[in-house]
């Protein structure tokens, strides 16, 4: 390969004259490739499901993609306990799915998440594709201007994410009912929604913004012992934030898939009692 004459980056004047963009011999491309495949698959699945506008409710289970269901066209018994804030809207003759009113919030939480930023900057934008692998862009301004400066609003997406966690936890508790709405029952669907809510809480509680909010912003922990304790706990979770990010992503998709299959009649929601 000829030496890049662009004169920038690792090919800048004065640096070691080497023609390769990287001399790494390991499979540095594998991790970004897997990230692209998994995230792209999730985006395709979530988009299809958000627009499907059906098979999201099977008493007492509701899909996390449609909860809280806030539109007047939500199927019978599925609307959230706070009622239907939105009406029924049509665009080009198609009814707008209730999912589209709410998915922007959890999407914003994940899009601005410090872990996902690393994941998609590396894998989708290749900035850089891997450590010590030259990126293909001629210019780089980071998160200093629009649109990426909006990443600084992550904390507001975090707060919105917490609200959704509350709704999904209520859904999981509501899953301790049978198909007639009677309490005191438990099914596989209950476990699915409980696991989903748990993973989402772990993902949110391990968030870097959460760590900052509960106490990280202080410089005198000794004056804030409770916040220090909270910060310590969140710091422990924060070590696993990446894991919780992936587990909760799969959790949401699998919980939705389960509800879809039950709602469509493909599988029966088996009850333990």
């Amino acid at each position: 390969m000829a030496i890049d004459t662009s004169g920038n980056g690792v090919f800048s004047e004065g640096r070691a004259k080497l023609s390769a963009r990287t001399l790494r011999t390991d499979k540095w491309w594998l991790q970004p490739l897997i990230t692209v495949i998994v995230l792209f698959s999730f985006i395709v699945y979530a988009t299809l499901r958000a627009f499907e506008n059906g098979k999201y409710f099977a008493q007492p289970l509701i899909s996390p993609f449609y909860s809280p269901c806030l539109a007047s066209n939500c199927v019978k018994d599925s609307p959230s306990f706070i009622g239907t804030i939105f009406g029924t809207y049509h665009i080009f003759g198609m009814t707008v799915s209730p999912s589209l009113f709410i998915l922007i919030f959890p999407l914003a939480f994940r899009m601005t998440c410090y872990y996902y930023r690393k994941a998609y900057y590396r894998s989708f934008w290749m900035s850089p594709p891997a450590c010590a692998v030259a990126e293909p862009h001629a210019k780089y301004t980071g998160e200093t201007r629009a649109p990426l400066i909006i990443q600084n609003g992550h904390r507001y997406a975090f707060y919105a994410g917490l609200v959704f966690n509350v709704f999904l936890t209520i859904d999981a508790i509501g899953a301790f009912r049978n198909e007639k709405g009677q309490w005191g029952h438990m099914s596989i669907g209950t476990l699915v929604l409980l696991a989903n809510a748990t993973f989402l809480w772990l993902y949110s509680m391990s968030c870097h913004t959460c760590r900052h909010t509960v106490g990280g912003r202080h410089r005198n922990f000794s004056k804030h012992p409770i916040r220090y304790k909270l910060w310590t706990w969140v710091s422990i979770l924060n070590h696993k934030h990446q894991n919780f990010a992936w587990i909760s992503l799969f959790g949401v998709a699998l919980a939705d898939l389960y509800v879809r299959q039950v709602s469509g009649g493909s599988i029966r929601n088996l009850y333990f009692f």
Partner: protein
Amino acid sequence: MARTLKLRIWRGSDQDGALQDVTVEANSGEVVLDIIHRVQATQMGDLAVRWNCKAGKCGSCSMEINGKPRLACMTQVSAYAEDEVITITPLRAFPVIKDLVTDVSFNYKKALEVRAYEHPADLAPGEARMEQIDVERSQEFRKCIECFLCQNTCHVIRDHEENKKSFAGPRFFIRLAELDMHPLDTLRNRKQSAQEEHGLGMCNITKCCTEVCPEHIRITDNAIIPMKERVVDVKYDPLRWLGSVIRKREGIL
């Protein structure tokens, strides 16, 4: 047990250079720096390499081994397969002086730009008292040995020479974080200067600095992201801005 190693060592200056093939014996337990010294002693008497402690504590022998920024004294030869050719080059983010030695003075210039700790005016030297829990968070950052592997691998300057003017780099973000988390430092505009003078906003937190740190400092999680959040407190969060207007203070301290 001895083995024969095939190496490619970059030799040259800031004007020109190339990889040169070398074959050399290696003994069990040796590190790459040992091998470089053997090459220097037996085949390339004028090979330039910077080194000092051979214990991973001075940060001198930073270089790139098979494309990865590493300390040569902490890289075991046994980590590489018997038939693997090991490529050794200087750090690729900085200008070459000779062979494996680079000019890292960029970092010293950036160090001078970070404003020093400011002691409280009402405390005489020796009167300062701090609780352990107030200082232990920033003690992690004091482990830095200034090997500049984090600076070298950071794509903001590695891949964009023009950013060197406005970007301090991860090593100095941990310095800024250390000072901003210091319970007694009285300089109150470190957050703003981190963003506006030292280029914190350029970092897109891809964590390469953390990956290459030989001291395992969690640079991104414990310094850069907390600093980014502190910058949001004083610069981008409208509610906290409102709070600072009403209560006349720069964020919560």
